[in-house]
């Protein structure tokens, strides 16, 4: 059900572009106003969200330790899995952010002959990593549209990406990896019973949206040609805050561009905020040194306690009979 409903929303969004640009000729709205609004909402939304998280204190030092603590000199401490200093935390975060360290641990649990068996399961890790890196590569590659002259780095990236020189224009490896990875992520969401059961429209929708963006992008590059020069004019105009909408940009571009805008707006209100949240997770980004250095809880509450004096008052007689030491006889 959720699989269909969120697809319907994507269709609606694409329809909106056909209506807006194709019928009503609202190029300026879709080419300038919406993109500016989207980037503003994105930035404001992300900043507000991060500030909201940052505004909530971390009252307790609660790293999840996944390795040996630093204790005795003859026991080797694992600074990456149970960081005992800031370098350990940095290393842990780098492994997490750039290599998805925790996902790499993933296993698959099954019951066979009344016994539980665990198998390795790296698919989610591999697909997740492939998706994020190809997305990043493609995103960076797009700066060639915004910069004049095209920086050398972009040209190198493009050369690398088209290394095999298949077809004209040459096929980008990242395009294949990107579509492949997103497809795997989608299929596992539908096929694995546990994952299907927990999936919400908010899980399918971003996948559709991203597939839509990728699909239209690929379409423009390989199949339905668009006027690159005009698009670059639009892009450089937008970035220099001097927007113009040249004639003759194809509808395919507007769909692509609009879906990107939707993605930007959708970001701060959705689970996609994990991109910022991963840096702030108290189970990962804290040093496991709570016995070395006192961690301060800004709202450390006053609580009612039971004092020794009250306790001795209640039990003085029995303690006396048992010959136990007392504060007051």
């Amino acid at each position, binding site marked *: 059900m959720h699989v269909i409903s969120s697809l319907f929303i994507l269709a609606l969004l694409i329809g909106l572009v056909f209506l807006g640009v194709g019928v009503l000729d609202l190029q300026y709205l879709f080419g300038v106003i919406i993109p500016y609004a989207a980037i503003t909402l994105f930035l404001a939304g992300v900043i507000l969200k991060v500030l909201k*998280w940052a505004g*909530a*204190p*971390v009252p*307790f030092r*609660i790293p*999840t*330790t*996944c*390795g*040996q*603590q*630093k*204790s*005795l000199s003859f026991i080797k401490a694992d600074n990456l*899995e149970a960081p005992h200093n800031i370098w350990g935390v940095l290393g842990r975060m780098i492994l*997490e952010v750039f290599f998805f360290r*925790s*996902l790499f*641990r*993933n*296993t*698959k649990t099954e*019951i066979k002959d009344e*016994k*539980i068996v*665990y198998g390795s399961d790296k698919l*989610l890790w591999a697909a*997740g990593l492939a998706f994020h890196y190809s997305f990043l590569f493609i995103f960076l590659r797009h700066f060639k549209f915004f910069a004049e002259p095209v920086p050398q780095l972009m040209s190198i990236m493009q050369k690398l990406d088209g290394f095999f020189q298949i077809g004209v224009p040459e096929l980008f490896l990242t395009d294949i990896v990107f579509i492949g990875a997103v497809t795997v992520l989608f299929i596992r969401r539908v096929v694995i*019973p*546990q*994952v299907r059961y*927990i999936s919400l429209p*908010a*899980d399918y929708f971003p996948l559709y949206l991203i597939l839509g963006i990728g699909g239209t992008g690929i379409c423009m590059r390989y199949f339905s040609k668009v006027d690159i020069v005009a698009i670059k004019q639009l892009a450089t105009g937008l970035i220099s805050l001097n927007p113009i909408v040249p004639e003759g940009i194809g509808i395919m571009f507007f769909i692509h561009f609009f879906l990107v805008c939707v993605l930007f707006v959708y970001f701060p*209100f959705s*689970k996609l905020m*994990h991109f910022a*949240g*991963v840096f*702030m*997770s*108290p*189970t990962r980004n804290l040093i496991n040194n*709570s*016995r070395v250095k*006192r*961690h301060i*809880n800004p*709202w*450390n*509450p006053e*609580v009612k*306690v*039971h004092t020794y004096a009250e306790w001795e008052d209640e*039990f003085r007689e029995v*303690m006396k009979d*048992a010959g*136990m*030491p007392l504060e007051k006889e």
Partner: protein
Amino acid sequence: MAEKLIKPEDLARGISYKHPEKDWRDVPTEMKKGCINYGALPASADYLDLPNVKKWQPMHDDWQLPENWKEIIFEGLKERLKKFRSLQLFMDVCVRCGACADKCHFYIGSGDPKNMPVLRAELLRAVYRSNFTLAGKILGRMAGGRELTKDVIKEWFFYFYQCTECRRCSVFCPYGIDTAEITMMVRELLNLLGLGIDWITTPAANCFRTGNHLGIQPHGFKDSVDFAVDDLEENCGVRVEAPINKKGAEVLVVVPSADYFGDPHYYGFLGYMALFHEIGLDYTFSAFASEGGNFGLFHSNEMMKRLNNKIYAEAKRLGVKWIIGAECGHMWRVLHQYMDTMNGPADFLEEPVSPITGTKFENAKATKMVHICEFTADLIKHNKIKLDPSRNNHWNVTYHDSCNTARGMGLLEEPRYILKNTCNKFHEMPENTIREQTFCCGSGSGIGTDENLEMRMRGGFPRANAVKYVQEKHGVNLLTCICAIDKATLPPLLQYWVPGVEVAAIHELVGNALVMTGENDRSIDLRGDKMGGKEDTEDV
């Protein structure tokens, strides 16, 4: 209870990971017998000044919620979102990738989809979305939201007392989302409505009053310790001193109360006493701080602080230099990650230094509390005690990492180092089931009750399954651990799944292996059974 319990083979065969097609929000929760814990006794709740106290049981239809129950929950949630970044973040960033799904022992053992950590968290997240996010307020169900109803409260009660706060899921989560944090928050919310369980509330009340969960009064505590001294003398031929409330001792030793009252904990307690005597440690127990464990951890952060308070207070009153904490899992979660923050700074104590080896425990220099395994491992490394591992030859040993010491502390190698020096036969369980990936006993966080037995057997299945593996492969007959809840709940679990494997404290093996000055022929171990490998100890 026992005769009604489902047979292990039927339980294992009956587990299915196929899920209903229906949206989980439309699947009603049944308060299944054998899978719930009884409600808190009013007397205990009253003693702790808890709100909305009532005589109540979860099996009843009417939970007697206060009139403004919704407002209490919303206000409570709002307050906690502001106080805990973990909660706010964990509500917002989950992508439902499913990596955690089959990592929870309760899910593995029950197949109930709401026991997947992600879905357990969604039970709260759905209500959060509907009431605290823009998308949820506008789109409701479509945005993954859910209306807060009395049935939702019941569902929370059912599933958040089916989480043992073991944190295994958080190891696998790409964002480190820790279900234990969420469970702790929901339990706090439920407690605001007076929906606590008795196995947490009554021990907490006992602890607040007498100093320990079991409600043992000071003279009873002294009796237990005196009895243990006699027992140890009978076994080893050595009479030890076990001071209580002794002012000016160098070290305060805090143990979980089960150590001096429960079996097999008790043999580990004998082990500590033998060890302290042999090395001549100047220490004292305390009848006031006669509990290291802290069921407040399973209730609320305030309750945790209230119960933990007495440890530093007593250390100060007695004028000790530093503190040793004995074998207990959740106790060490509190001591390691919460105590200093809550009740510190412990500036009236000194940085812990072992008087025997001179080792500075720099890893405990602020909190001033050292884990007994750290202390003992250091003694062994410096050859300060004489150990005869062959005395444990009747045991073929494996080691169960307790959730809290493994994932909340990183205490992994110290106990293994001790084991390697105190026994000859040691085999690890499979790597997916130990260290940071260790499986919970299934009864932690205050749900180790008889009325919850079926769920405990289900939740403990993965742990037992791994024990069975080493039993079959290596002939293991002893599961050692450093957690009082483990020691109480693993024996029935293993009896159910893996008969023939016993449970023991690490310091029971230390006590057995320890060569004491003036000891007798040591023909019996601390349990009073024939000591293994006696013939190999001629050179002693």
